[in-house]
């Protein structure tokens, strides 16, 4: 059911060689990014990159700014008064915070799934159709809805009750509905902010399977508190930690280590990473 079973295909030596030969295409190039709220930095000097059709996991203790950073990647931080982003976030080589970039257009290309499932108080159909309607997608809406639900592995469960209220679904189904909703507008990247933290292990497993499935088409960045989850699904992992500055006044998040997930979990370079992934600190 889990990645552990599916991973061997990824690790097939021939494929691995091919993967190494093909140069990784970068979706996000994050360079010395600092995000502050009201002048106080929440994360400082963050640098890592996100590869195309890969799952990149952001892990680390609570309050280390993983979600803050994630929200920079589709400019959701713009909605918080007093939030300020410094540094450079390149998306396919283009500065997301450039003067001509419209955050609304950014969010059409970079979807987001939130920690708590947040379906709209509408029918299952309307939840999916909302995105295509507002972005003005052409094509048959019924087909778009069906395709999105199929990609989120939800179609068979809900096809007979599309007109029913989304709140009648289980938590796990609601979260997959939110994923389907994000897929409906054909994004290129999906950001997931602890998508399984409110779900039971079975629903979590389904979403993890889905993420691996979605990797064929989309690039995914996931924030998670669950280290097994990061190990199971992600290709590369950034480990965040909280640092207190010299005066002891401010706490801000930093990236300690960024590498292939396998290396982070088996042979980390930094001892803080090791302490965290082995459960000694956390």
């Amino acid at each position, binding site marked *: 059911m889990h990645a552990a079973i599916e991973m061997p295909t990824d690790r097939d030596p021939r494929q691995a060689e091919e993967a190494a030969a093909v140069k990784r295409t970068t979706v996000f190039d994050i360079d010395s990014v600092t995000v502050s709220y009201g002048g106080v930095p929440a994360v400082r000097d963050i640098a890592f990159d996100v590869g195309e059709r890969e799952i990149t996991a952001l892990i680390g203790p609570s309050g280390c700014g993983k979600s803050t950073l994630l929200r920079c990647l589709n400019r959701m931080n713009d909605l918080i008064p007093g939030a300020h982003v410094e540094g450079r976030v390149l998306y396919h080589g283009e500065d997301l915070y450039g003067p001509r970039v419209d955050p*609304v257009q950014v969010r*059409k290309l970079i*979807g987001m799934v*939130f920690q708590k499932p*947040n379906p*709209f108080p*509408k029918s299952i159909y309307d939840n999916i159709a909302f995105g295509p309607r507002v972005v003005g997608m052409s094509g048959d809406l019924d087909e778009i809805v069906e395709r999105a639900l199929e990609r989120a592995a939800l179609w068979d469960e809900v096809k007979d009750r599309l007109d029913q*209220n989304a709140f009648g679904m289980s938590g796990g189904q609601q979260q997959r509905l939110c994923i389907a*909703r994000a897929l409906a*507008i054909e994004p290129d990247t999906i950001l997931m902010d602890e998508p399984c933290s409110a779900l039971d292990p079975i629903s979590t497993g389904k979403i993890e399977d889905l993420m691996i499935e979605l990797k064929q088409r989309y690039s995914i960045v996931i924030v998670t508190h669950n280290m097994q989850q990061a190990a199971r699904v992600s290709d590369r992992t950034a480990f965040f930690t909280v640092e207190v500055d010299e005066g002891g006044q401010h706490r801000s998040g930093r990236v300690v280590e960024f590498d292939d997930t396998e290396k982070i979990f088996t042979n980390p370079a930094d001892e803080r990473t090791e302490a965290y992934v082995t459960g000694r600190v956390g």
Partner: protein
Amino acid sequence: MAAGDRAPDTARARLAVAGARAGTAATLGRTDRGERARGLIFLALLVLAVTFALTGLGALLVWAGIEGAPRLSLELFTAGPSSLSPETAGYRTAILGTLYVIGGVILLIVPIGVGAAIYLEEYADRRHWWNRFVELNVQNLAGVPSIVYGILGLAFIVRGPASFGFVAAAGSATLALLVLPTVILASREAIRAVPSSVREGALALGATQWQTIRRQVLPAAIPGVLTGVILAVARAIGEAAPLLLVGAVTFVTVDPSFFEGGYSTLPVQIFNYATRPQEVFQVLAAAGVIVMLVVLLAMNSFAIWLRNRYERQFS
């Protein structure tokens, strides 16, 4: 439990068990009498308060029912007012006047009230002093006496800049100003009650702020907005004082129109009849109270039906 009931061996153990049992009895037994009495007195006061409120309303309804009963007929709704033959007079023009005035009020307060509420909740940055100033004053305006709005209506709507004259539209505009704060406050509450996760979800899908408000926030807020409109309309229907200042006249024998000619409304007409000494007018006034309650209940039932329809759809 069986094990616990077995007689303990030593005297000391027996003492301990007895103590424990006594302790349990004290904890789980009846509450202290004084405490219970205080609870009952409080409950009695609450019942008294409810009774007091309902008795007043009940007495009014019973009085209107008994007094007005002789005149209850279809004629009451279809015949015009008359001071010569009060036995056959009705409230036709006053009912129409009320419908015109209230219709105008609704047309004004829904877009303006909801618009103001959306601005204050979704767009206004509270860090700017002028937005806080507007907020404070909306709350203050809700407490201004209605007669003050009557004078305002007379000076600015009937005469002055707007110069509508003494017509139903002027009455609508005046009453709309009077009840707008209520609508704005209720709509703001309703908009604020929509979880921010709904807004985030919509924005994350590439919706603009306006699309988010228009397609997600407003539909979810409709039941609350309608509640505010119901309260506002109920208040506007019963107002007589400001309307007397903006030209609601007591005798209109032809059906009113919105922008020309005199108009009357139910409370104004009832007030006029009730001040006359003759018994027959008293009966007519009492019957008018029933007519007004019927109109009010009909309008409110429609609004409540509308609200329930939306609530079923969105919860």
